[in-house]
């Protein structure tokens, strides 16, 4: 194996997944969660961000029995099992919807846009949904 191939195997890139959609109305939220869980198996530096309507994905007490869809909000709890520990929620998006970190299904780091901007700028790959 030459030197280039070895580097390709050992380099760790910073991947950020940006969630901006509400759950259930479209398939984006569920699809992104599944992508994150698959990607977590590849030992990269993964972070997940929720902003705009994406913060609604994490709202507690979701009950989908009335709409005949799978309640996937419990699956966000698996992120920790997959060692995805960098989970950020934009402060401004929460506030605009009258929500706080206490309303969310998992512990998150709430960041103001001024701070989230810097975290975003440090990424090698940003995947948006």
């Amino acid at each position, binding site marked *: 194996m030459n030197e280039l191939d070895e580097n390709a195997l050992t380099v760790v890139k910073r991947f950020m997944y940006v969630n901006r*959609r*509400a*759950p*259930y*109305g*479209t398939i984006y939220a569920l699809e992104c969660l599944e992508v994150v869980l698959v990607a977590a198996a590849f030992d990269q530096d993964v972070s997940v961000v929720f902003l*705009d*309507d994406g913060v*609604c994905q994490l*709202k*507690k*007490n*979701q*009950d*989908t*029995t*009335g*709409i005949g*869809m799978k*309640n996937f*909000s419990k699956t966000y709890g698996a992120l920790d099992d997959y060692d995805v520990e960098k989970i950020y929620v934009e402060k401004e998006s929460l*506030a*605009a*919807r*009258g929500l706080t970190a206490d*309303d969310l299904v998992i512990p998150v780091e709430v960041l103001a846009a001024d701070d989230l901007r810097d975290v975003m700028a440090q990424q090698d790959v940003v995947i948006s949904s």
Partner: protein
Amino acid sequence: MLHLINKSPFERNALDSCLRLAKSGSSILLIEDGVYAALAKAAHAEKIIDRMGDFSFYVLGPDVAARGLSDAPLIEGIDVVDYEGFVDMVAEHDATQSWL
């Protein structure tokens, strides 16, 4: 006229356009992601509160519950309906307009 809003007011302007163009006395039913417009503590709540005198507002309960909003304060004066109520509303109004 029964107006149906199924888009989040944070992401689309369907509710804005409906409020601008719907005739006074119309009914407006928030469904799917449109239910986020009913959040009392949200930044845009005034948009609906200011028009309570012009329109009757309704929200679809199963879509509220699915999104975890059953415990969140909704704007006072918005009536929660179930699927049966939705069907009744469609039957009672002479026409339905979906703001997709």
